[in-house]
């Protein structure tokens, strides 16, 4: 059993009830199963019960936070509850101050010791909530509330005692696991996966088409190249017949090759130069030099980086000047370190300045002069290439005049060369590494491959997420169904068992429970008399406390006061069965018929009954009688007598019952 609470002792000092230390130990030293605590009206029964509830549930349960619990002759008062849970000792102390109207809690726990504040072991938290504490430190009003359909006390009691809330805990864990597993997933819907599936399929089709086109173009290019080679051979053979033309052609072709190489070389050089903006226009060079000059004037970068100050404020005991670093100084250094550049920024600025110094000349026109020279060389090479082309065309024209078939071969060569350039342009589109557009417009084979891999990954990822989501939804659905079934079954069983108890308590009364949902519903009745309501509540709570795997003490005020003499014996016989520890606050007028029934059951169940009487000052005869008892304690403002004989003889004339 995870919860087995027993009250060991309660102590009151300087409060509006007599000072006392009530020890609930039985003859064997363990908490006695049944304790009858007789306190006449006006002795502080209500106060004691309120404080007991506040000790367990915390101060929020106090209905009047401004109520002064301290004795009018004192400034400070204290209430303390010593209890065990599974034999482990706990103490909750409440200290009141009437001047400040303050309340301070202290909690003593095993292995931890005393702590300021109200601390409840986690396993007791569901039961030490204000609404639940009123069930076992029984508030008479609760009996009525249990049957109020606007309230949920009955349901709360079942949920807490039978730990139905753990189903919710389980569901929360499953939901948290799903969230954790799918935190990076973009979608968990069928729509999401279908969108990616469509994209994947389109990419797959496009990839297949592009690979096919690529393969065909490559084959075509090879065949054109071969054809072109044959044509060029034929052209050369025909030209051989005229040796003068042949020499002219060879010379022009040689010139063209050399000029082409020059064009490629100078073009590259020009492009390299114009990559640097300061070479394109003098204004750029001036602005870049001004930037460097501004850095120098601003003394950037500084000699110390931000990290230096952070390190100083965090790890050093003293500043570099020797001053001891207080927390205020550390904070100031830390705050101001933000005004300094980080080491990465400093390195970047230094590299920039060095690069400017090494490459940008302050001499006006230096960069444009170099670019102009290279452009002149490029133009000259282009001109040479054109001249060579013209020479080739001229030889070609002369050759055609001499041999008409040479013209046909020349036209065929030009046609092949044009087609070859078109195919090469297409192949370049297939082979490049960048591309954009929709799935149907992509040409790049590598981009298509990457896009397809990504689409496949997304489909797999979302499919897995969807599967997890389906599992989560079904698991949670089944657990919620299990929780609701368990709640319904428990409510039904408790209803039946409680009715059996009611029939024993009130054999000649037909009041019965009809059902339990949020509250208790009476069969064919909206409500009962005070005694009936109380009996039904006892029957319900007794069923709960006896069935659950949770053992809590049951503390009740005047258990038989509102009940007819005729049924008191039954109620008395019922009280020892309510819980494993029952503490009943009584008044003398309740004893009749009640004690006999209680003792009978206690005897049958081998449960010891402890009788305690607590009262403030009374008549001399009463005090004398008390002082004559074996177990008698006199406090500052009251008397406490333990024993059945005194308990039964006690009668205070002033008791207003």
């Amino acid at each position, binding site marked *: 059993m995870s919860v087995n609470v027993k009250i060991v002792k309660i102590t009151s000092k300087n409060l509006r009830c007599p000072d006392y230390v009530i020890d609930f130990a039985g003859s064997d030293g363990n908490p006695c199963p049944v304790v009858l605590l007789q306190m006449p009206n006006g002795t502080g029964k209500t106060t004691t019960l309120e404080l007991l509830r506040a000790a367990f549930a915390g101060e929020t349960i106090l209905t009047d936070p401004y109520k002064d619990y301290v004795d009018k002759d004192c400034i400070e008062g204290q209430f303390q509850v010593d209890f065990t849970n599974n034999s482990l000792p706990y103490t909750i102390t409440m200290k009141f101050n009437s001047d400040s109207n303050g309340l301070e809690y202290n909690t003593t726990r095993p292995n931890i010791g005393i702590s300021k504040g109200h601390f409840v072991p986690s396993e007791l938290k569901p039961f030490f909530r204000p609404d639940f504490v009123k069930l076992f430190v029984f508030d008479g009003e609760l009996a009525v509330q249990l049957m109020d359909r606007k309230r949920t006390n009955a349901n709360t009691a079942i949920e807490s005692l*039978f*730990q139905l809330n*753990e189903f919710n805990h389980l569901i929360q*864990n499953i939901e948290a696991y799903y969230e954790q597993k799918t935190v990076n997933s973009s979608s968990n819907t069928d729509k999401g996966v279908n969108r990616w599936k469509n994209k994947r399929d389109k990419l797959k089709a496009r990839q297949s088409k592009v690979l096919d086109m690529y393969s065909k173009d490559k084959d075509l290019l090879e065949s054109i190249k071969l054809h072109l080679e044959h044509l060029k051979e034929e052209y050369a053979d025909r030209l051989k017949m005229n040796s003068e033309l042949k020499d002219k052609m060879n010379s022009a072709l040689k010139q063209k090759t050399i000029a082409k190489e020059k064009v490629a070389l100078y073009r590259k050089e020009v492009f390299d130069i114009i990559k640097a903006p300061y070479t394109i226009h003098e204004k750029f060079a001036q602005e870049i030099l001004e930037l460097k000059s501004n850095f120098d004037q601003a003394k950037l970068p500084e000699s110390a980086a931000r990290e230096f100050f952070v390190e100083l404020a965090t790890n050093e005991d003293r500043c570099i000047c020797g001053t001891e670093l207080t927390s205020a100084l550390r904070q100031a250094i830390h705050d101001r370190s933000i005004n300094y550049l980080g080491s990465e920024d400093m390195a970047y600025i230094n590299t920039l300045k060095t690069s400017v110094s090494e490459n940008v000349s302050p001499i006006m026109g230096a960069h444009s002069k170099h670019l102009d020279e290279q452009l002149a060389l490029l133009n000259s090479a282009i001109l040479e290439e054109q001249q060579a082309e013209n020479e080739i065309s001229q030889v070609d024209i002369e050759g055609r005049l001499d041999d008409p078939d040479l013209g046909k071969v020349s036209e065929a060569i030009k046609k092949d060369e044009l087609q070859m350039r078109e195919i090469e342009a297409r192949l370049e589109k297939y082979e490049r590494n960048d591309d954009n557009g929709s799935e149907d417009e992509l040409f790049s084979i590598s981009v298509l491959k990457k896009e397809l891999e990504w689409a496949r990954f997304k489909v797999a990822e979302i499919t897995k997420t969807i599967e997890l989501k389906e599992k989560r939804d079904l698991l949670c659905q089944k657990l919620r169904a299990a929780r609701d*079934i*368990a709640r319904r079954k428990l409510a039904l069983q408790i209803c039946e068992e409680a009715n059996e108890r009611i029939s024993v308590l009130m054999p000649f009364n037909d009041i019965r429970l009809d059902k339990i949902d949020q509250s208790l519903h009476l069969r064919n009745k909206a409500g009962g008399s005070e005694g009936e309501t109380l009996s039904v509540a006892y029957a319900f709570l007794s069923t709960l406390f006896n069935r659950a795997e949770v053992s809590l003490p049951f503390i009740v005020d005047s258990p038989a006061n509102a009940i007819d003499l005729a049924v008191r014996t039954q109620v008395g016989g019922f009280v020892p069965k309510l819980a494993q520890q029952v503490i009943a606050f009584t008044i003398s007028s309740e004893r009749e018929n009640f004690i006999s029934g209680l003792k009978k059951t206690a005897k049958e169940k081998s449960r010891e009954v402890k009788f305690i009487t607590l009262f403030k000052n009374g008549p001399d005869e009463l005090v004398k009688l008390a002082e004559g008892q074996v177990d008698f304690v006199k406090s500052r403002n009251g008397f406490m007598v333990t024993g059945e004989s005194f308990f039964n003889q006690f009668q205070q004339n002033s008791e207003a019952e």
Partner: protein
Amino acid sequence: MIDKALEDSIKEQFASPDLQACGAILLRWLEDLAEGGAENDKESIANRADLVFGAFELKTTSAT
């Protein structure tokens, strides 16, 4: 120990032969939670949930 009503309700919901293993893991988890013996850190929860999700046969459940 949890009340028999709780145990029965889980067994009832996970009665299909393919789900009994999953139901048993959940029942044990519920018992540990009720007893206060279940670790509450992320890793322990993930380990338990791994077992639950692994033992949960989606096809059978969806079909039933």
